[in-house]
């Protein structure tokens, strides 16, 4: 199914149906169902160990699932091989630890995917990469290696690396959790820009201000389950479940 057809039929970009996963005895995902429409921004919050990161990582199969279904634009997530690699290339992923390729310059980090996976010529890939690096504000760092950048700069470069693949959706797995406080906003600003540009996003985060400002929907997870979900203002001002109330109380600012 082409993108236009999918859009016409209003097929969700990402859909999870009754997903279950165990780590040994630990039931990390319990019957999780979630659907993300084109252009929608879904923020997943919850206490640590609630399964929110795992959920994010199952969507491009960095984690496997025991049962249930994951559909990308209505098609089941491939299990392996070239089809899986292609599907992954169409979903951007941003990690807590940035995971920039340590032995490559920032520019090479961003052009690797376009050149090796999409087969773009070097000049084209570099032109677009520099454009993206400028957009996230690290163009001057293009020829440095990751270790020479601050955490915030690394994470912004990592976002540029994902964008270079022109993904149909982006997954953010706690993108600001490893950052010093003064660098969190520079990364969130880039993400807000993406939201404005209409990117479909799933964001696992502890940044409640960000969630309230940009989320179309907040999903609250605890013990591997989606406990409740709703519009950010509804959720933050009138949480329905006791778990969500306890969680929001526990993180309330000092």
């Amino acid at each position, binding site marked *: 199914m082409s993108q236009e057809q999918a859009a016409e039929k209003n097929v969700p970009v990402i859909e999870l149906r009754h997903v279950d996963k165990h780590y040994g005895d630990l039931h990390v995902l319990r019957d999780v169902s979630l659907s993300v429409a084109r252009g929608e921004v879904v923020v997943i919050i919850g206490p640590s160990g609630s399964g929110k990161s795992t959920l994010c990582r199952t969507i*491009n199969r960095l984690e496997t699932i025991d049962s249930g279904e994951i559909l990308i634009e209505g098609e089941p997530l491939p299990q392996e091989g070239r089809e899986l690699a292609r599907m992954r290339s169409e979903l951007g992923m941003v*990690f807590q630890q940035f995971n920039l390729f340590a032995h490559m310059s920032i520019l090479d980090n961003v052009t690797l995917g376009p050149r090796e996976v999409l087969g773009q010529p070097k000049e084209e890939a570099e032109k677009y990469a520099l454009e993206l690096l400028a957009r996230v504000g690290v163009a001057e760092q293009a020829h440095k*290696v990751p270790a020479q950048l601050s955490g915030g700069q690394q994470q912004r470069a990592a976002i540029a*690396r994902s964008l270079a*693949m022109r993904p149909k959706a982006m997954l953010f797995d706690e993108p600001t959790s490893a950052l010093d406080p003064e660098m969190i906003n520079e990364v969130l600003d880039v993400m807000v820009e993406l939201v404005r540009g209409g990117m479909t996003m799933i964001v696992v985060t502890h940044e409640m201000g960000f969630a309230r400002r940009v989320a179309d929907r907040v999903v609250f997870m605890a013990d591997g389950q989606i406990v409740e979900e709703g519009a950010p203002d509804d959720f933050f001002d009138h949480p329905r479940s006791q778990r969500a109330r306890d969680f929001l109380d526990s993180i309330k600012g000092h």
Partner: protein
Amino acid sequence: MSAARTLSMRDALYEAPGPRTRRRVRIGTAVSAVVVLLAIAAVVRQFWVTGQLAPRYWSLFLQWTTWRFLGQGLLGTVAVALTAGAIALVLGLVLMLGRTSGVRPLAALCRVVTDFFRGVPSLLLIYFFFFVPAQLGLKLPSFWMLTLPVALAASGVLAEVFRAGVNAVPRGQVEAALSIGLSRGKTMRKIVLPQAVRYVIPSLIAQLVVVVKDTTVAYVVSYPDLMQNARVLITSYDALVSLYLVIAVIYILINYAINKASVAVANRTGVKIVR
């Protein structure tokens, strides 16, 4: 690099010494210097007493032919060591890739081969190549009777060295590569191996030194390496101690050169990985 200040190993492992420790270090240095000097004096005296310093043991080094013969041996050593080292690098890499491939039978096979070559003394492998091909009517040149077993022995170790390097590459690097759509093979080639090799360069150097030292059993197959040629000179001049001393110095210089060269290569491979 501003973000990453490099610490010397000493700084990283030990705390800075205080005044009392510094005094102890000074005393220890002085004492050990005296002990070393005494030991050298004792050795020289013993040589003198036993007549090892007599001109007839050393005059051969004034002859051009001695050095030419040793030089030919040195070339032989270098040829075997470089060939064996190159074969071992490739084979070690192949064994490691096979072992980590995830294809069960292949992994098991590579594991057995690796452990076998790692466990069997290289001298035993040399005897194998000396006797077995001959039994089968296969005539191997002495160069290969020496090079192949030395290479095989080293490949087992190098496979493990590479595997350690691959395991040292953080999982996140692989996940990031997979997430932009790179295949497993490309992830290995473009992301994991380049980093793994940088991690293990010191171990690779150490192993090349072992290869050079392994070649000294060339006499088993009568291959004219440095050691074998020295042995020939020893019998013809009846000058055992002096010759062994001189070639020991040559071996030390070779291995010192290997260390220097490898560090230069490592620095030239571009960016160092700093985390």
